[in-house]
């Protein structure tokens, strides 16, 4: 079908624009670098369009983006669908009163924060980040939003690393991804 061909061509271009960098941040990790996608004006445009097409009629009033690469994709999507953009940040960056969610890393813990009052109970939200690996960060984001009675409709990422089983970790929370990086 024409729409599928168009979609496949856009996805192919997006996938081709992502650069894999070996041994970053440490030996054995193949890092999926989206900065090269941002240099391809058409592929970056297509990335945003694919998200906007999916979410524009889903009554979403909040796009929450995870620091820092979620700040690159989230605001253009928010603007196009008429939603607020809410940054979910590392500790001590947000100046106002915050709520925090701690989450586990491979070694140790980290914390994610959101401004009190940024979102209202009952709002419908999308969480966006460049990539899902283990799903730990996305789960922390979902928890933060659900603690203030926001309904997280879906999580959206450009890339998924399927072997790390992030999709399973999200459980029944839907996940939409453009590209699988095997």
């Amino acid at each position, binding site marked *: 079908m024409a729409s599928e061909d168009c979609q496949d061509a856009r996805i192919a271009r997006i996938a081709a624009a992502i650069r894999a960098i070996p041994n970053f941040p440490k030996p054995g990790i193949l890092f999926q670098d989206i900065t090269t996608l941002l240099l391809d004006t058409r592929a970056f445009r297509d990335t945003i369009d694919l998200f906007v097409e999916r979410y524009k009629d889903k009554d979403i009033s909040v796009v929450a983006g995870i620091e820092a690469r979620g700040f690159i994709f989230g*605001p253009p999507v928010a603007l196009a669908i008429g939603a607020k953009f809410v940054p979910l940040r590392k500790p001590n960056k947000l*100046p106002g009163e915050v709520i925090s969610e701690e989450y586990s890393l491979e070694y140790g813990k980290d914390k994610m924060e959101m401004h009190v009052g940024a979102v209202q109970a009952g709002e419908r939200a999308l969480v966006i980040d460049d990539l899902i690996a283990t799903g730990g960060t996305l789960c922390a984001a979902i928890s933060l939003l659900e603690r203030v009675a926001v309904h997280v409709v879906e999580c959206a990422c450009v890339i998924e690393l399927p072997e790390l089983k992030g999709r399973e970790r999200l459980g029944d929370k839907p996940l939409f991804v453009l590209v699988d990086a095997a």
Partner: protein
Amino acid sequence: MFAAENGLRGDPRLQAISEAIRVVPHFPKPGIMFQDITTLLLDPKAFKDTVDIFVDRYRDMGISVVAGVEARGFMFGPSIALAIGAKFVPLRKPRKLPGEVISEAYVLEYGTDCLEMHVGAVQPGERSLIIDDLVATGGTLSAAIRLLERVGAEVVECACVVGLPEAKGQRRLNGTPLYILVEPREIENCY
């Protein structure tokens, strides 16, 4: 220079943008009145107007690169880049960018910091715009300008939503024009 002095005097969008920015006293330390743009991002119309004002200014300037300073420059830069058909290049704190980088150090009140850009992101001769949420002393923006000029790009302008008093009266940063939408509001009641 401020937008109001450069063709947008009396533009009602600027007032709404200014009022959408929250002032948080004593952050990150006593005496600092922090200009919090996250409340601007919660107002879809004011946020859209912010981007539109920049896009209207830059769309016909032949700009092929929008460079955004981590992290709040990431919230404004990509939307502008998309609308004017330019690349978006993130300028990041050390060790965040995975590929080969060039680095530029700059001075803070106490100590120094460093801004990095990927090698190959920008070509010599490209016309670029640098964007951040706020300009204070101009130290960070000056480092950003040096990064782009080191790879042979031309920095057409630096653009910020808010300009603090230290930036007032500076039409240029080391020769590069500076364009600012609003100055900090006077507030009577702190919370």
